[in-house]
């Protein structure tokens, strides 16, 4: 997936998500899901992507359990859990295999989204690792003053406040800095804007899309 254009990846993620709603056959969904799990190992080669998919798998299992407990049928519960996993996995695969700048360029140039909105989308993804690093450093700083996240759920909730507050303050300061530094460098002047990492669809992209359509049609038709 690394060699594909950002737009192709977005397209494939959308198609796999749409396909998951076109079928009520768990076997077809299992094939899509399996293909995503295989993709993460062979295409992104990132441990963090595999971890994210594993977490989503656990979340899907929880969703399945909750639905069963709420009285839904096994098939319906399985279908909705698998659909959720397929959609979320496809997004994870796109995010982990595409540079943020490429994603922004694809959203603006090929999806014709306004640059401000495209930037918002990619800024959120950029903020996630930053916030994770921030939360790590905050929890370390608090551990140095005896912070332990144990005890009753109420105590835990209370003690999380001492992590959340500094994180929020630092996140606000960081976003203010970011906004100022963007303004200072001409953010918003979109008419003349160029992109550093623009990717265009080439033969391999069209082939990938064609193959995926064929693969999906065969799955949906014959399984």
């Amino acid at each position: 997936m690394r060699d594909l254009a950002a737009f192709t990846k977005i397209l494939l993620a959308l198609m796999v998500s749409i396909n998951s709603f076109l079928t009520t056959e768990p076997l077809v969904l299992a094939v899509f899901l399996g293909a995503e799990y295989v993709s993460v190992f062979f295409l992104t080669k990132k441990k963090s992507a595999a971890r994210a998919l594993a977490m989503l798998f656990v979340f899907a299992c929880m969703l399945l359990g909750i639905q069963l407990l709420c009285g839904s049928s096994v098939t319906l519960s399985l279908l909705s859990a698998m659909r959720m996993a397929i959609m979320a996995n496809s997004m994870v695969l796109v995010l982990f295999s595409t540079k943020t700048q490429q994603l922004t360029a694809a959203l603006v140039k090929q999806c014709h989204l306004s640059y401000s909105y495209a930037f918002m989308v990619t800024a959120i993804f950029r903020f996630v690792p930053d916030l994770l690093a921030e939360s790590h450093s905050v929890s370390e700083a608090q551990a140095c003053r005896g912070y332990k996240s144990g005890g009753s759920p109420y105590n835990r909730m209370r003690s999380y406040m001492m992590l959340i507050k500094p994180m929020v303050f630092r996140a606000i300061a960081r976003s203010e800095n970011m906004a100022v530094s963007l303004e200072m460098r001409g953010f918003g002047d979109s008419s003349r804007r160029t992109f550093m990492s623009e990717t265009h669809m080439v033969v391999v992209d069209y082939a990938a899309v064609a193959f995926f359509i064929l693969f999906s049609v065969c799955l949906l038709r014959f399984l």
Partner: protein
Amino acid sequence: MIEIRDMTYGYNEEKKVIQNVSFSLRNGEILAIAGRNGTGKTTITRLVMGLLKPEQGTVFFDGRDVTQSPAAERSAVIGYVFQNPDSQIFANTVLEEAMYSPLQHGYSGKQAEEKARKALREVALLEFAERSPQLLSRGQKQRLAIASALAAEPEVLILDEPTSGQDCRERVQLLRLMRKLNEEGMSILLVTHDMDILAEHATRMLVLEQGHIGFEGKPAELFSDKEKTEALGLELPEAVRVSAELGLPICLTPAEIYAKLVRRTGTHA
């Protein structure tokens, strides 16, 4: 007081940031850690604090092996002040912020308040006790972080680049505070890039070089050897350079230069 023995640590399998490093922080001294960026200065302090677990090696505190004890437990005897105080400030008032650590260590509210007030007095922030910490200047926040650590009455204080991002006045205040705490018996482990601070305040120094200790000894020993200092990626302190240019024996502080000049010329300014 603190002894590190044969410590090895790496953030990934391929490259070890620290390799078989051994050193000790003695009672009542200021031990400075210096070195190029990425040589593992902060990593060492995090290993001492228990924020990282070593792959190999042992940490002793007063002869007791504390390698496996978590940071929260070590915080009763070791205070750690981060480079950026904003990482830890969460309370609504300066006093509450300073009370957190003693409360975590099981003191009653009254005892915690007494300890917090004492620590705030020590860092000259008592008058701001009821103010929001977010309204303090960078230097005041750094002093609040020190007070928060002091409130638990630790025996050792780790300061990671304590003067970074501070103006001249705040920097002087902080260094005076560090000196005062040391004179009162506090052992200090100081990470710094500032050779002037190091020369003026450190009792001993360690210089890290590619995961190993490149130098360990008194600042004067290293700074009297210009080639070695530069080979370790450090600059000579200003006082050392000026004293060399004036043809004086090595001086680590402007006060020493002045004293030696007075002795040489026999006149006071």
